[in-house]
């Protein structure tokens, strides 16, 4: 998706491509609204939110190679902190630019708390512990309504303050510069700014001392340690960085929805975000972005299955809800069978899955043989 930015033919062409992309992104919510209706602008907002989440998880799973199935916990923490500090629940109404960094910090702290006891774990074992962590956070949110009501339990927290910038509340439809902006439009631009910032940070981290250390740990943790990398700190840093993105996305989500409940933070969400990364191309930013957008848009598009059935067959034969998940599953299976490296893999991943020389496989096999 962003691939063409990497290989511009000339400087002028690159600039033209960027301007074109910027104009397209700026007009996108209005184009989508005109073509598909207002509900699709909300889908677009969610797509951006999931891009942020997927890029965050990509740091942990894609770069550092730590299989984290509890990522949604950080999303939940960011969202709940926002709800606590900006809703009638505790009577606090702090502005979003105060709450969001706090949410990011809290999530980052929990990232370290999750990372610390799991440092010696890898692969399946790490996945199970992180999965448990994600569930613990959700169950806490579900039950912390008595004796002191902190989370309001399964009912969730309502009437969360919308984001307000320069006196403009993003919560209601308003006319600015002669254009009518709905809430979904405002949030689109807000999320776009955060998505671009996340992309920028992800790219910068990738090509840095820290990014290389993450990849080195993924490739061979023993060798990374023997080359002077403090694997404990660098792994904790990966957990914390990923969690910070999750926390920010959570805060944005709470403000956007105005309502949160534990139901939004189930294991399914963690798995979905992981699917986005795997489907798009693990560890490769353009792939991750594409994966996040596709897996947000595709299930929504499949909602039309009922209409299509009625148009083609005159009646709804299979419940669109069931068929939707079925097709979604089939798409994932086909993808993993025919293109396991993802839609836009990095050159490294492509090689891993289509190794002509089998060196990669050998390396994997000998990964831990010198450990006591």
């Amino acid at each position, binding site marked *: 998706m962003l691939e063409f930015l990497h290989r511009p033919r000339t400087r002028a062409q690159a600039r033209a491509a960027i301007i074109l992309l910027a104009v397209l992104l700026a007009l996108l919510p209005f184009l989508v609204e005109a073509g598909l209706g207002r509900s699709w602008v909300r889908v677009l907002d969610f797509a951006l939110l999931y891009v942020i989440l997927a890029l965050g998880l990509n740091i942990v799973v894609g770069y550092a190679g730590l299989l984290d199935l509890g990522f949604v916990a950080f999303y939940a923490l960011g969202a709940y902190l926002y709800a606590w500090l900006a809703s009638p629940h505790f009577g606090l109404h702090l502005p979003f630019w105060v709450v969001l960094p706090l949410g990011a910090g809290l999530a980052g702290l929990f990232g370290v708390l999750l990372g610390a006891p799991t440092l010696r774990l890898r692969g399946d074992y790490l996945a199970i512990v992180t999965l448990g962590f994600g569930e613990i956070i959700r169950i806490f949110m579900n039950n912390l309504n008595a004796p002191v009501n902190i989370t309001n339990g399964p009912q969730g927290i309502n009437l969360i303050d919308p984001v307000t910038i320069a006196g403009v509340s993003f919560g209601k439809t308003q006319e600015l510069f002669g254009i009518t902006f709905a809430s979904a439009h405002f949030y689109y631009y807000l999320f776009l700014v955060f998505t671009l910032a996340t992309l920028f*940070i992800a790219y910068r981290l990738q090509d840095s*001392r820290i990014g*290389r250390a993450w*990849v080195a740990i993924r490739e061979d943790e023993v*060798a990374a340690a023997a*080359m002077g990398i403090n694997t404990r700190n660098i792994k904790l840093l990966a957990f914390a960085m990923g969690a910070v993105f999750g926390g920010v996305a959570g805060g944005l989500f709470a403000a956007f929805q105005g309502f949160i409940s534990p139901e939004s933070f189930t294991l399914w969400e963690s798995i979905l975000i992981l699917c986005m990364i795997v489907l798009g191309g693990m560890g490769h930013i353009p792939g991750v972005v594409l994966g996040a957008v596709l897996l947000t848009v595709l299930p929504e598009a499949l909602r039309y299955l009922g209409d299509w059935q009625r148009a083609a067959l005159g009646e709804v034969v299979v419940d669109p809800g069931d068929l939707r998940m079925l097709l979604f599953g089939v798409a994932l299976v086909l993808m993993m069978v025919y293109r396991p490296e993802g839609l836009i893999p990095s050159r490294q*991943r492509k090689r891993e899955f289509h190794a002509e020389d089998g060196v990669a496989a050998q390396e994997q096999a000998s990964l831990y043989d010198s450990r006591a």
Partner: protein
Amino acid sequence: MATLLNVNGVSKRFGGIHALDEVTLAVQEGEIYGLIGPNGAGKTTLFNCMTGLYSVSRGEILLDGRPIHNRKPHVIVELGFARTFQNIRLFANMTALENVLVGRHVRTHAGVFGAVLRDAGTRAEEAASRERARALLDFVGLANKGRTLAGHLAYGEQRRLEIARALATEPRLLALDEPVAGMNPAERRQMAELFQRLRAQGLTLLLIEHDVKLVMGLCDRVAVLDYGRKIAEGAPNAVRQDPTVIAAYLGTEAAA
């Protein structure tokens, strides 16, 4: 010459097995010290104890007088002790240059904020790292392989890349675990020549090797391990004629 590395009575047990039994040796600054012995003698175990991958059960290891046993591997690297692995352990899906850059990690400092903001200091550090990494690739003869994935390099090139990566940590002592295993005679000569150049630069080398010819021609002193014990130490020629060593390699019957 000062002693750079002291191994004092180091023992390592795995359950009931004594992989290392009271091993004592001293490596002088600037020498090439060979560690030889039959398969399973405990050479690699000793390496792993020295570089922090294994804890030691008893005894102490001193680098320049400072204890390094039971320290974390990255601390030992920081103190100036780098190593390579018997079964090459490169970061296969990173380029050759990136592999060497990982070696620079311990001598550089940029954190998350430096990485994201790319301030002047971080840019300068990164540029210096890259320059140093390219120079090291050039030094080991991989100047034009910087952009090749490590896993795509030929076997001999991978061995040399591992050395470049270890050198990037700016070690005083470099431990090489069977660096010429599986190489043909021409490649072995090249490697021996590389080791000489390293020594000429003031580096101390510790070498596990099976190739007797290479060890005899290259090492100033060798120690022989057998069943976790040091059975001989001294100049290569003296050690070669030591009856205990011959017995260890060929069995007692042949020695008699």
